[in-house]
């Protein structure tokens, strides 16, 4: 909905589509400049941090999975990391590798969903993927097959794709049968080809000429592209432990949002594919770096609309990683380490498909959760999403209202916000005063 003249108008959208959850968008243009931008999140609060208090530490992975049906593995594995930190145990190598495989499944599933069903229709002027499929079914079929492969990994390792059941603090309830894991190779080989074709496809889209100035924050590891573990780092030199990061990132509750908004040192930052690429691209396997080069990406990508290319690259990476992991698979035996509760605080961080996820729990000696803090990626990205909107509107003042609204929605979708996580999504209101 928009009203006013091009120099003075309000653009608003109540219920932004093709995002996970409910939120609305409001932009006010006054005298040719943007005077107000807000992404309001009105997803009904569910009070997870409160529900967790009084529960046993072993319940956190399954309970927090219910924050988000799109990225339940991120929640489960971050909860496990935090609980294992509290118990001061390190799980064995085989469990770590199996967790990374499971997480690769979720990255493939979630990224394929976003690239094909949620984001690509914007670049092709389609309302949705069904309209896109009417033009060329083979493209959407390719995307759905990719997504299926991600789900297949999650089903094989986790038992099911939405809210897997096999994850527990310390490891897994049972180690998947090597035959079942080996059977993933064939679909994954095809998925890798489809992922490479996806990169070529999306890198040919027309991207609006918008460059952001981002402070990127992502996990880093010494020897691999961080997914299921790592140390928080930033493009401006931050390199801290998960526990220090939990102190540095301060969340604030504002009136128009049921998501808390995070800042570090009073300033916004961005997590997710663009941040991971900027900080960790040299650690991408050769096949991914070649694909990035062919797609024309430099060492960093600061055009938020090109996040779709980076997301496609991360599908390639996840397929390649998954193939390596299944080739080397050895069932963890026992499937889980025993975890004995001890009083203390545990912090866990992992890279959810849409960005850094942090869990922190305080546990008493009986293993009961006394305090819980969960910082999802969308809370951390919300301020940056608003800053992007401002740039997009400033660069798009000559667009008519409908096109400007669509551009704004697309700009929000660039960051794959999960509003169910952050507290659902976008109604756009454009006000030209």
């Amino acid at each position, binding site marked *: 909905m928009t009203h006013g003249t091009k120099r003075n108008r309000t653009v608003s959208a109540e219920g932004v589509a*093709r995002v996970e959850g409910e939120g609305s968008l409001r932009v006010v243009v006054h005298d040719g400049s943007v005077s107000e931008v807000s992404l309001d999140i009105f997803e*009904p609060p569910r009070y997870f941090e409160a529900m967790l208090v009084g529960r046993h530490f072993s319940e956190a992975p399954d309970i927090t999975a219910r*924050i988000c*049906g799109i990225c339940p593995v991120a929640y489960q594995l971050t909860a496990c990391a935090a609980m294992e930190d509290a118990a001061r145990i390190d799980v064995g190598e085989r469990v770590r590798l199996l967790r990374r495989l499971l997480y690769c499944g979720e990255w493939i599933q979630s990224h394929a969903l976003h690239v094909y*069903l949620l984001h690509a229709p914007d670049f092709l002027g389609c309302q949705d993927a069904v309209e896109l499929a009417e033009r060329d079914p083979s493209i959407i079929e390719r995307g759905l097959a990719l997504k299926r492969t991600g789900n297949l990994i999650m089903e094989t390792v986790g038992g099911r794709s*939405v809210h897997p059941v096999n994850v527990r603090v310390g490891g897994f309830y049972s180690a998947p049968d090597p035959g079942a894991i080996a059977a993933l190779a064939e679909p994954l080989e095809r998925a890798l080809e489809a992922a490479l074709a996806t990169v070529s496809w999306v890198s040919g889209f027309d991207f609006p000429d918008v460059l952001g100035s981002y402070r990127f924050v992502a996990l880093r590891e010494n020897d691999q592209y961080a997914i299921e573990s790592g140390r928080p780092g930033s493009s401006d030199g931050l390199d801290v432990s998960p526990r220090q990061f939990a102190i540095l990132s301060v969340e604030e509750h504002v009136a128009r949002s049921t998501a808390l908004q995070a800042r570090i040192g009073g300033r916004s930052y961005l997590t997710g594919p663009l941040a991971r690429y900027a900080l960790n691209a040299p650690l991408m396997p050769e096949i991914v770096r070649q694909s990035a080069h062919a797609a024309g990406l430099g060492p960093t990508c600061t055009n938020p609309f090109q996040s779709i290319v980076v997301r496609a690259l991360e599908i390639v990476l996840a397929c390649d990683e998954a193939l390596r992991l299944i080739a080397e698979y050895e069932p963890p035996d026992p499937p889980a380490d025993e975890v004995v509760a001890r009083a203390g605080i545990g912090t866990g961080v992992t890279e959810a498909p849409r960005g850094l996820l942090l869990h922190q729990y305080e546990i008493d000696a009986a293993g009961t959760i006394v305090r819980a803090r969960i910082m999802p990626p969308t809370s951390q990205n919300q301020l940056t999403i608003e800053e992007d909107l401002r740039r997009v509107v400033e660069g798009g003042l000559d667009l008519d209202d409908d096109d400007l609204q669509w551009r704004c929605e697309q700009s929000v979708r660039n960051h794959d916000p999960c509003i169910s996580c952050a507290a659902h999504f976008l109604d756009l209101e454009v006000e030209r005063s």
Partner: protein
Amino acid sequence: MSVVAPARPTLAVWKFASCDGCQLSLLDLEPELLALTRAVRIAHFTEMTRAHVEGPYDISLVEGSITTSDDLARILEVRKQSRYLITIGACAATGGIQALRNFVEPGEFASMVYAHPEYLRSLDTSTPISDHVVVDYELRGCPIDRFQLLEVILALLAHRRPVVATHSVCQECKARGTVCLVVAGESACLGPVTRAGCNALCPSIGRGCFGCFGPSEGANVDSLTSWLRTHGHSDEALTRLLQTFNAAAPAFRDGATRLVATSVTLGENPRGRKERL
């Protein structure tokens, strides 16, 4: 005589308080998804499309529970606009995990999470859709099974009754030949009182059922809990088991309440919560 092709029935998907996982199950149909979009017209599905077609709708799928006054008004409107209203998932059928707020003092949870609870417009309870409007069919599960969802939609399109089991997970275990975890003494299991639909997934990996499909028909929770009690499972652990994703489902809620009421103090006092009504 000329034959006019009938218009495709319209399908709308509505979200209330939830995690999006059950509506994702529709997209997870993957190979069947495009075929489905040829059989029905997607009229409203925010997670998938910008396009919106005004009602009325032939089929509405409703995910999530009612936790705000705005949502309460919205579900009444969805009902008015829908020929068939089908709820999908545990949140819509029983209030979901967020119904744990029903067991504490009003406002207690909000003040634990938000610095300014006064900014929120949230009800003190999370309630199932059937508390507010007539529901034509409830599909259970946290999450639902996507093939059950397909079955329900196909049945509606064919004007027949959906074939969805109402017996227990316990029977599914027997059918697939899984060794009983309860009898083997390994873990507490809600299989005997939980609705089938997952094909006894958790017991098949050596994990006790945690009740995500909610109570089965005629569930005898007291019988199960008293048996588990005598086999070394604490009242506290059993109460937590019942008070998770379907905590406010009457059979689980009352089972937990009676467990607390009949608790003998053996070691720790159970932390069972009594639902505020």
